[in-house]
């Protein structure tokens, strides 16, 4: 059997398929009109395809209707939606196949519609085709495939199949292509949403992985540099120690970045869903551990810490681990952007319904115009005094997300050139303060 046996495999050029539009039956035209209406009404691709499958099956043979996205610049095709009149569907959503060497490649390249009149005989032509074998196991015997095009790009493929051979002729191909043309807009939308979603997911997975993997080695490098600098491994010249101090400082900077990105990646991938607890002791479970973490940096810059509260507001309904991240971030910023030998002040207050916590520091602060940028993702203030203390622009965003999850608010105030203060207010919930004792 020749590789192009037309009784098995046939390609219909786009011109030929378009020319025969007049052969469309009245029910077919009605289906096309209804697709137009649904696309115009911005129905989802899944909804539209559900309609198409049910409607087409009433008009002519259609046991299976599916749609696949073309990915990786036309190198791979991935099944997106399938409707079938039978069970089980073996070639499911997510099934992927490389296009190189497959007859689908011709469809992509030339915009042709492919009709396979006998899948069993087609398998003899292409014995390596995994998808053909799978479809045969589903009982499919003939199929028709055309491209889904948007702005001259093929974004997907549209398949229709029957469980008997020789089901499709030129007129069917014409109708199939006409449907595909109308579906392409909805396909484009669904494709973009899926791409965006996948890219976002992949980005945060990668971010989480990379930062997690970086954390230990960086911490270990800092520690080894510290040992060298402290003379544990032999005496060093002052010049060598200076270099080591530089390494340690950069190491701490990297570690800070890693931790901020790790928080963000966890937040964005849903791993930071709050686990609320009753009677969280805000001072001992949130403030004290955060101070412990920041203390060495504070000492290094000879800053003083003032704890400013009278009756300690100790018990709130919250997730203490998440609030600790907020406190570490705010204290960390106060140290990072504060003045050497300056003061950092933690102020706590509570009334019947809210806890207010603020972190104040002496330092350059920010202007009123810059305030709205503070809590946005990846935003950093472009300010000469602050440029030295590099930041990721994600720490405050993470704080904002966590405080939002607690139904609270976070705000920032500054007297530029003098001080900055970050304040969050949290509802105490469940009738106000309670004593943990």
């Amino acid at each position, binding site marked *: 059997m020749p590789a192009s046996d037309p009784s098995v495999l046939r390609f219909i050029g786009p011109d030929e398929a378009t020319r025969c539009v007049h052969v469309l039956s009245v029910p077919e035209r009605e289906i096309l009109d209804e697709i137009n209406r649904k696309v115009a009404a911005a129905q989802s691709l899944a909804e539209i395809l559900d309609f198409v499958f049910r409607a087409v099956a009433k008009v002519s043979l259609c046991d299976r209707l599916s749609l696949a996205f073309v990915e990786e610049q036309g190198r791979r095709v991935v099944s997106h939606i399938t409707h079938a009149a039978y069970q089980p569907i073996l070639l499911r959503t997510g099934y992927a196949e490389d296009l190189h060497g497959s007859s689908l490649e011709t469809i992509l390249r030339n915009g042709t519609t492919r009709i396979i009149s006998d899948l069993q005989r087609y398998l003899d032509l292409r014995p390596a085709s995994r998808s053909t074998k799978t479809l045969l196991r589903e009982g499919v015997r003939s199929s028709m495939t055309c491209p889904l095009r948007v702005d001259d790009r093929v974004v997907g493929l549209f398949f229709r199949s029957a469980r008997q051979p020789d089901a499709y002729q030129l007129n069917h191909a014409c109708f199939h292509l006409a449907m595909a043309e109308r579906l392409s807009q909805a396909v484009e939308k669904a494709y973009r949403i899926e791409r965006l979603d996948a890219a976002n997911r992949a980005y945060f997975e990668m971010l989480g992985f990379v*930062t997690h993997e970086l*954390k*230990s080695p960086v*911490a*270990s490098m*800092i*520690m*080894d540099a*510290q*040992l060298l600098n*402290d003379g*544990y*491994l032999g005496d060093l010249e002052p010049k060598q120690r200076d270099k080591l101090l530089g390494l340690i400082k950069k*190491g701490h900077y990297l*570690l*800070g970045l*890693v*931790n901020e990105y*790790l*928080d963000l990646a*966890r937040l964005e991938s849903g*791993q*930071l869903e709050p*686990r609320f607890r009753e009677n969280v002791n805000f001072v*001992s*479970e949130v403030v004290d*551990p955060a101070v*412990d*973490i920041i203390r*060495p940096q504070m000492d290094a810059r000879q800053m003083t810490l003032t704890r400013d509260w009278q009756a300690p507001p100790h018990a709130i309904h919250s997730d*203490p*681990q*998440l609030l*600790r*991240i907020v406190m*570490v971030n705010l204290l960390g910023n106060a140290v990072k952007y504060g003045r050497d030998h300056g003061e950092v002040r933690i102020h706590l207050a509570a009334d019947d319904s809210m806890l207010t916590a603020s972190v104040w520091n002496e330092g350059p602060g920010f202007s009123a115009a810059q305030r709205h940028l503070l809590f946005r993702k990846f935003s950093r203030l472009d300010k000469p005094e602050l440029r030295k203390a590099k930041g990721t622009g994600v720490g405050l965003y993470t704080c904002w997300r966590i405080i939002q999850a607690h139904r609270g608010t976070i705000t920032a105030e500054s007297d530029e050139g003098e001080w900055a203060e970050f304040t969050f207010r949290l509802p105490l919930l469940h009738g106000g303060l309670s004593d943990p004792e």
Partner: protein
Amino acid sequence: MKDGKHVILYIDDDQDFLDAVRTILESNGYAMAEASSAEEGLKVYKETQPDFIIVDLMMEEVDAGTNFVKELRAMGNKSPIYMLSSVGDNLSISTDYAALGLNGVFQKPIEPATLLSVLKAKLK
């Protein structure tokens, strides 16, 4: 105590940290016992009866560190236990440090001066 020296048991699955801490401790007159897993840590604990314990709670095996601390409590341990943490780790631990019976937290990377001052204060 071993040969007149306080014994510090340090459990971490990262050999680089074990080596670094050993350098600090041995240079300052302490003896160090080490383990790279919680299971091994319990074995070494029984053998060495340490005066001070440092454990990384975020080892590869989930909950290994926290379970280790609970086991020590069940065995009637009286020696101070410090855990290792870094800022981001706070998120993944669902257990309350104080409720676990931990005496304190060291940040990774450990500052040699901080480690030594804590040991000096706790091991008089």
